[in-house]
Structures are given as structure tokens and as C-alpha cells.
């Protein structure tokens, strides 16, 4: 339930900021990300500066 609300919040955010045109490419990126999660099976924090 909470996961759905995060997705809805994300959609609202994009709509409010007039960024809905980004949706297709975001979906592709998220899709790739999901595949990465499934393939790797774990989500160890990478060595990147803590910007993200």
C-alpha cells in the first residue's frame, strides 16, 4: 500500500512540475533498475559520493 502511495506521489510530483513528458524515459530507466535488482538480488550501497 505504501509503495503504491510513493508511486502516486511521484506521478503527482511530475504532473505538478510539468514533467510528465519525462514519464516514458523514466519508466524505461526504472525498468532497467528493476532488472538490475532482480539479477543482482542485493542492493549494496555503491562507492559513490553520498549525493544520491
Amino acid at each position, binding site marked *: 500500500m*505504501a*509503495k503504491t*502511495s*510513493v508511486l502516486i*506521489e*511521484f506521478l503527482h*510530483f*511530475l504532473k505538478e512540475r510539468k*514533467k510528465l513528458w*519525462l514519464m516514458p*524515459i*523514466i519508466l524505461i*530507466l*526504472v525498468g*532497467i*533498475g*528493476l532488472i*538490475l*535488482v532482480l539479477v*543482482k538480488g*542485493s*542492493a*549494496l*550501497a*555503491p*562507492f*559513490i*559520493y*553520498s*549525493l*544520491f
Partner: protein
Amino acid sequence: MTAILGISAFYHDSAAALIVDGNLVAAAQEERFSRIRHDEGFPVQAVEFCLKRAGLKPENLDYVAFYDKPVQKFDRLLETYISYAPSGLSSFLKAMPVWLKDKLWTQDSLYKHLTGFEGPVFFPEHHESHAASAFFPSPFRSAAFLTMDGVGEWTTTSWGTGRENTLSMLKEIRFPHSAGLLYSAFTFYTGFKVNSGEYKVMGLAPYGRPVYVQKILDHLIDIREDGSFRLNMDYFEYPYGLKMTSKAFEDLFGGPARKPETPLTQREMDLACSIQKVTEDLVLKIAGHIRRETGEENLCLAGGVALNCVANGILKKTGLYRNIWVQPAAGDAGGAAGAAWYVWHKALGNSRNPDGNRDSQSGSYLGPEYPNEEIRHFLVEKGIKYHEYRGKLPSTIAALIEKQKVIGLFRGRMEYGPRALGSRSIIGDARSPGMQSVMNLKIKFRESFRPFAPAIKSEKVSDWFEFEGESPYMLMVAGVREEKRRYPENRDLFGIELLNQVRSEIPAVTHVDFSARIQTVHRETNLFFWQILDEFEKLTGVPIVINTSFNVRGEPIVCRPEEAFTCFMNTGMDVLVLGDFVLYKTEMPESGQDSGYLKKFELD
């Protein structure tokens, strides 16, 4: 009763803070408990401490506040990858799993860790949390605020006004243009760790000359008269890469970044000096613009850049503002308290009642404390010899400092924020010419160039430093007064050659440019520490001691008595004050030493 738990987590310096009926009753960084420097995990133990301190359980909480908006941060991440594609592929491949498995579901995570809590969770924006942490606990009814850091969701710099219980953000600068990340880029390039070595760059700056300032202004950053700025992103890789600077940056400054732990050269010192100068000018410009736009006489600062106490000191010296208040936990750890303040005042509309004089931060002594009986139990159980000096402890400590002893001071509530302010401190004689070297190399095991800070009785600060007012959180730098200075015979030295010269009556806390990072100690917030200074003044005429954090390089500041004892036993400290008890190194068994102690901590 209304209880609000603020949390910062998942990036660096996780922390928890608890506000009960408008009072900040507890706050602490997770690293102190987990013993992992800059711990980024969920602050399980910090939360546990906050709740225990107030006698609460998660089900007693009314609200939880998380210090930023994960969804907006995720949007920034995706948009940035899109903008720089395909350059950011490797960073993308590493970041996505973390986001899709963990960071995006922060709300779930909060409820999972706070079993029993069923109330609402607020997510103020990152810079709203910083602004709230700067203004709401400040002593002012009305003030301007300025927040500058690496980046939050999109914002890297924001300013606005706070009036009573409201905050209005009037202007922001957005990623990738970031003063914090510009400074971090130089931190990386000069061979220090990003998000922890910025302090070293600031400490290194006075050894250098500002020879790269024009190059930085010509190529890296365009600063307008109103303090707004843009970076030339050709020189940086941080939006998409695994390092801060690009090949163009290396070409501009004549070579690759210094490798960590290799010898420092004049080049690094000059780079440090130059970026420090640019940062100071930027802060002055933006602060001046805010002053003109808002008409406010008071300024509140937060965000990582507000830990640049040299810039803060210069800003104060200009007299642009009548008063400046800096949140002591100005980095992300302070976002926990800021988020909670935000809910209490802005979301719930509760009023403030500042007196114009004292802040609501309680000296930032907001962490755990350990009663004497608990400490005694620890000492007895371990068979450790100790002494008690009932009522005479401050004078005993002062006498030991006068005899050149280095003392670990563990007493009272631990500090919230990166600075040790007398509860988890190592103190020594500021008059001693050799003390900086002894403390750096034999006690802290850190780089010899790093300066130490003076703690001074608040009422005496103007007698010793070119400074009026208060600096209770060690976040203002000012010069040693002219009459206290000593000018070395050989004035042709520069760079690291300056290190061992005696420059004042208090050489151990006088940096090579005659500056000092001042902590004013106040009877109202730390009577015991004030009494030590008072007794030391009676003995020597100097109301000042060195104050540095109670840890070795790479170690989080000690939190519990056993950590203080272990650190004491494995460093060159002579005396340890644990609550009301005093331990002498000469009476300690050698078996208390651990030859692998220093190796436990990754160098910062």
C-alpha cells in the same frame, strides 16, 4: 503531550532528534553508537536513546519527520542521468538497485523500524529542514536564513526569512550548481575524503597563497553580484560519475588529484587557500544580498557550508548583521532536529517564544550521559584504579593542565553535532609551544598541520581575540588580539615551514595566520567546563585551554565510558576524567592497551 521524532538517514551522518512539547530534549548522531564514522544507516540506536531519554516508546510518538523528500531526490537522480546519458551509465547501474530496493521506500522503512508508531510521517524538503534547524532554535523572533550544502533534493542553496513560527523560502539555487560540491571537488582533488575532509582543506588554507583564485573564477564558477552562481560543469563529474572532478579540471590545475596519504605540497596548500577565499567571497556576497533584500539584522546559518567557521568569522567581522546564529549540527545530522522543529512550528502552527538572547539548543548537550554510579560500576568491574576529588575536580584538572598533562574529559551529556564542546573532549595547555604537535601526532594520530581550537571563558573572549559576542559552538574563527601575538624573527617562511613557529601567548591554538576557531564557554550551559577554565585562569592568568574532540583519527567521538577508557589507554593521554572520577595513565596496567586499536578506524 506532543512528541515528534526527527530522523535523518541513508546518505551520511544519520541522526535522531526528539522534540517534546516544543523542547528539543534529545538528539544524537548514529555514528556515536554504531562506531561507524558518518554512519548512513537507519539511526536505530540514536532513536532508541532519544525515546529512552524521554521515557517514551514508538507508540507514544505523535509524529515522525524525515529530513528530506526521497521522491524528489529520485526525480533529480533520474533527470540527471537522462541529461548526461550515456556518461552516467556506471553510476546509474550502481545507484538504481539501492534506490529501488531501499531508498525510495523510506516511509515503509520508518514504520518498520518504529514498531508501534501509527501516526503520520512528514517529509519536509532537505533545505526546509536545514532552514528550520537554523531559525527555530535561534534566539531571534525574526531573522534571515541561509542554507548551503552539497545538495538536497534539487536545492543546493536557499535563503529566506523566518518570522515567529513561520519560514519563507525566497530564493534557491539548484543542482548541479553547488557551493558545497565545489568545495568538495577541491577536497577530493587535494587528496582528502569528500564529506569529511572539507575541514582539513579549511585548516590547510592558511599555509597557502590564493594563487588560483582568478583561475577558479575564470573557469569554474560564475558569481554574480547578488551571490547567485553557476558552475561550469565541464570541470566536474559528480552529477554522473564516480569521482568529483573531470579531466578538464586536472588539466586546468596542472595534473591529477593528490593521492590520499601522500605528502602534501605547496600546490595543495595554494589550492586550499584559493577555494577557501572563493567560498568566503561567495558567502559574503550572498549574505550581503540577503541583508539588502530582507532588511533583517539577524542571520541564521545551516547546511554543511555553515561549518566553514572561517567564512562565518569573516562574515561576522564585516558587521553586515547585528547577530549571526549557526546551527551547531549544521550538516545533515542537524536535519533530524530541523525536520522535527519544522513539524512543531510550521506544520502544527505552535508559537515560538525566543528571548533574543539564549537559543533553544541547550548548548547542544543533547546526547546521552552516564551517571557516576554507572561509571563507578564500570571501573570497579574492570578493576581500574580511580580517584575522587569531591568538589575539587575543576581545580585538580586545571592544575594537571598547568603541569602539561593531556586530559580526556568525559562528563555530562554528549554533544549533538560534529564538534566536541567539553563533554567528550581532549583538553590541554594552550600556552605550550609543543602541544599542537604532541596532540596531533601522539594523541590524535592525525596530520601535523591541523590546528586546534581554544575554549575560553565567554566573558574573556574579547580580551584575547578580535571578537565580540558568543561562539558557543566553535563555529566562528577570529584573530588573536594584536597584543597577544608574537612575531617570529624569520618572516620569510611560508607554507608548512610556518608550522612550528610561536605566534602568540597561546601558540597551541593560534593558526599560522594568527586565527583561532573559538569556543566561548558559558556558565549557563556547561558550568563544569567553565570552572576548569576559571581555575586555570587563577593559576596561569590564561582563561583558555585547547579543546579537541575525544577520539583518534577516523574514530567517531567517544560516546560511552568504555570507549573513552579504550581511547585513553591507546593514546598518549595522561589523565582521564570520567564523570567525577579521575584516572592516571601512570597507574594503569599495560594490559589495557590494544595494539590493533588504531587500525580499527578507516582513515578519514
